[in-house]
């Protein structure tokens, strides 16, 4: 190889090595830090990982917020309107944390199935619902509706007979 070509070769080699390292780093960091979102029903069904952090979203169940006296630990329940999950958090809650509010918590499940949150997020907008939470609620609403429909099927003959009665009157 001529000296010029040799130099060029080294430069290209350096670039390729550099880009490979960068790509490796990015992919590595990505796979380690991807944080999946799970709804409370999915957690109860055991779909959420036991050994890594994930994000849990739902509505704060009314009347479920309890403080442990003399500490900063708060316990509350999150729900997608079907299954509630207990959450424990130590620290200062965001300004917009309220019962009935949709929130997202970041954390991990402990051995007894309680979600230990390291961070609680509530957006600075009272009309805002985190997209993930809205999505899980919509899914739950669908399931609720189907259940209601099934229940109604069982009782539908009654409804029909009632309407006939009304008419005959």
């Amino acid at each position, binding site marked *: 190889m001529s000296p010029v070509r040799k130099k060029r070769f080294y430069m290209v080699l350096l670039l390729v090595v550099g880009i490979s390292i960068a790509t490796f780093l990015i992919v590595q960091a990505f796979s380690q830090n991807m944080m999946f979102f799970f709804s409370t029903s999915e957690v109860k069904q055991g779909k959420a990982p036991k050994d890594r952090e994930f994000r849990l979203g739902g509505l704060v169940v009314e009347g479920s917020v309890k403080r442990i006296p003399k500490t900063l630990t708060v316990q509350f329940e999150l729900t997608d309107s079907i299954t509630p999950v207990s959450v424990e958090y130590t620290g200062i809650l965001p300004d917009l944390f309220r019962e009935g509010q949709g929130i997202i918590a970041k954390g991990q499940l402990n051995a007894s199935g309680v979600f230990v949150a390291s961070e609680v997020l509530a957006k600075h907008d009272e*009309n805002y619902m985190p997209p993930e939470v809205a999505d899980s609620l919509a899914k739950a609403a669908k399931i609720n509706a*189907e259940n209601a429909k099934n229940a109604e099927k069982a009782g539908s003959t009654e409804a029909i007979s009632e*309407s006939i009665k009304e008419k005959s009157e």
Partner: protein
Amino acid sequence: MKKQMIPLSLFAGLVIFLAIGLTLDPKEVPSPLIGKPAAKFSLERLYSETAFSPSELKGQPWILNIWASWCVSCRQEHKLLVNFSKQNSTTIVGLNYKDTPEEAKAWLKELGNPYQITVQDPKGRAGIDWGVYGVPETFIMDANGIIRHKFTGPLTKDRVKNQLLPLLKQLENERTAVQG
């Protein structure tokens, strides 16, 4: 392929994803609740201390309008609703969303009250069961209490004329067909 083409093709790929992302917008996706029975709730009425639940309206088509006094686009559609209630007999239930009774009453006094029944949902709890993303939203129920249509955002003359009225007519026909 020329290397100058690379940025263009990367961009083309990105655009495809962004376009798919756009179609996921909640306003484009029909509500999963359509065709499902209306969610149950029991909420206090604005003008009396009794509770109201949707099952009371079984046997007739009805309209649920979700509104709030702090919502500017509700103001826009309100006049339309008032006119509508004068010309049509369909029951309109107003669900006052994340609001205070005082402000809600003041608003109805100022702009007129198109609602046969007004209920309060100060914490937005029932709104969530109905999959409400924001106000105003309007749901149309048939005589069996099944949600048949949902309007996201304010009603307009156009929407009332071309969508709401034909739908109500159809629901009325369905009802008489069942009964007849």
